[in-house]
């Protein structure tokens, strides 16, 4: 239990480019950010994921120097920048509202950071020109921001934040203001750009899909603290607790009690039923513990015949709901013991008729390794 909260703190990464050390921010009595530790390597695209009010924006603003931490240190590329003013930091930020200067043209907006650095006119022109090409805004140089579309504004904001070649680029909900189609396109552009420039990105978002597809690593944040940090696959397949499991994707969580422990894991009895589930676990559970056993919908197979095999859990039930999406279908099955289970299955065979229909009696099964044991 103890290590689950502090294991990022105890193992500092020697290659860390950005180090956040026990960073806190209090607003009066409210702890917006509470003792956060984080190491980010150079060139990473790191996502901080959390709901509104979880402190992710405050954390980002502290990195930018727009908010003063109550305690803790921020180290970037070996420099302790905690007390540096925003205008001196080698960090730039892309704001959620884009915050383009309305009285300046696209060109002037992008050039602003360089002009404040006192760089030579011709050099500025050259770099602005290159940046305009990079974000494909060549023809928009002389336009004012209010004559741009949402996607164009987003690219101007990005160009403006990138032009100073920051050591760290902060992106506050970079895709939130774009419509779905533009989002997917921009997402890939952002990834390519990051790859090309090699700048370290920190993205703050409330959208788990955005975080999963963009980031090399994700930190899930709740009430000012990091709940779990890891690669998208780690977070998805091995959520640490119920909050993370529920926040990322869809999941079935069954309340259970541990009845037996062995070398390969544990056996738990689902509450209010006789079903025994086997699951792998590294965490220190003991017999009699109340745990949650979680299974992702796509890890469960659904069939009309009783499946056979080693180390699988099976349950019999009736299909209550069926949603057909073309490439896959989602079933809601009520088991004999009264549990509701969501299952998603690829529609591998071409057929105009469903293999499994409403009110069919079905068998659900999943491998022992698919079950996740959630202690909290």
């Amino acid at each position: 239990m103890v290590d689950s909260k502090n294991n990022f703190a105890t193992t500092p990464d020697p290659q860390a480019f950005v180090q956040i050390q026990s960073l806190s921010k209090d607003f009066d009595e409210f702890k917006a950010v509470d003792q956060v530790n984080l190491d980010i390597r150079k060139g990473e695209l790191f996502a901080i994921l959390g709901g509104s009010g979880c402190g992710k924006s405050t954390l980002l603003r502290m990195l930018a120097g727009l908010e003063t931490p109550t305690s803790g240190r921020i180290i970037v590329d070996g420099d302790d920048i905690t007390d540096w003013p925003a205008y001196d930091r080698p960090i730039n930020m892309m704001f959620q509202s884009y915050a383009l200067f309305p009285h300046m043209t696209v060109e002037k907006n992008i050039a602003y950071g360089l002009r404040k650095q006192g760089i030579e006119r011709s050099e500025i022109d050259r770099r602005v020109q290159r940046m305009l090409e990079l974000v494909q805004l060549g023809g928009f140089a002389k336009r004012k921001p209010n004559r741009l579309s949402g996607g164009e504004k987003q690219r101007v904001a990005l160009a403006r934040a990138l032009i100073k070649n920051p050591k760290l680029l902060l992106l506050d909900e970079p895709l939130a203001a774009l419509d779905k189609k533009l989002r997917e396109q921009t997402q890939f552009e952002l990834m390519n750009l990051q790859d090309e420039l090699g700048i370290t990105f920190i993205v703050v978002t409330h959208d788990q899909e955005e975080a999963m597809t963009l980031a090399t690593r994700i930190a899930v944040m709740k009430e000012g603290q990091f709940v779990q940090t890891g690669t998208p696959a780690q977070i998805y397949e091995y959520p640490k607790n119920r909050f993370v499991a529920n926040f990322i994707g869809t999941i079935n969580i069954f309340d259970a009690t541990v009845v037996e422990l062995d070398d390969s894991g544990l056996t738990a009895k689902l509450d209010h039923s006789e079903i025994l589930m086997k699951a792998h676990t590294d965490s220190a559970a003991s017999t009699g513990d109340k745990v949650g056993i979680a299974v992702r919908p796509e890890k469960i197979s659904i069939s009309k015949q009783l499946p056979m095999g080693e180390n699988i859990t099976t349950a019999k039930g009736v299909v209550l709901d069926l949603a057909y999406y073309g490439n896959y279908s989602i079933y809601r099955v009520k088991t004999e013991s009264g549990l509701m289970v969501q299952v998603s299955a690829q529609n591998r065979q071409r057929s105009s008729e469903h293999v499994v229909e409403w009110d069919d009696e079905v068998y659900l099964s999943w491998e022992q390794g698919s079950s996740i044991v959630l202690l909290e």
Partner: protein
Amino acid sequence: MATKQQTFGDLLWRRIVIWVPYTWLLLFFLVPFAIVFKISFSDPIVAQPPFTALFDHTQNLLNRFQGTLNNYLFLLDDNLYWVSYLRSIKIASISTVLCLLLGYPMAYYIAQSPPTRRNILLMLIILPFWTSFLLRVYAWMGILSTNGIINSALLWIGIIDEPLQMLYTNFAVYIGIVYTYLPFMILPLYANLERLDLDLHDAAADLGAKPLQVFWDIILPISLPGIVAGSLLVFIPAMGEFVIPSLLGGLDSLMIGRTLYDEFFVNRDWPLASAVATILLLILVLPIMLFQRMQVSGRSSD
């Protein structure tokens, strides 16, 4: 058919709504000005009304027009008028700048305050209007006079040995004008600064601008329409101000409003007074037209 009547009714209402203010301006601004403008070409006489008719209908067609440019020529001739105009422009300009320097930080502070405090502060700005303007100017006479509050206090503390002459000086006129017109500067500035997106401030700082540069590069240009509106609202009435220089000013604070008053009511030279008023209007229309043009060009470049 019903919809057609509806649209006709709508159109009628629209016309009425538009034409009410226009009719008002026509009746109470343009017509009186036309009369003043006409009188400015007449000669003064001791009669009722005290000026000659512009058209003498007893004459033949060619000689009917009896107008004269004498009044305007006289304005050029006599230093008194030029000095009054220039002094008015000077006093109004300096007062406008003082109002801007005082009002901008106040408006900025109010705009950045949390909503509850903001409303209280705005209330305080508007509150003086609930008392008669004349009463407030008289109050200043009490404060500034030789045995007024300021002099008594300074004498009592011992900073000065004899009372300072503050009342009946230009200093008192500036105090009076700035005090009276400050709200007219603060309110349009506040309306402008209140809409300012604070992210712009952060974005400029993030891109390397120091606080003063943020103000100069971002906040000031964005609030320019508010500055211009507030400045016009102070400059225009201050230019023609009559009461404040009369009550608080001395002999060397003769502004064009007072000159105008004297021509009308003391000398009873209506044609000359009308010429003074016409020139005053021209001086005031110029900055308004510039402002209009700036707004139009600002909008089209948006």
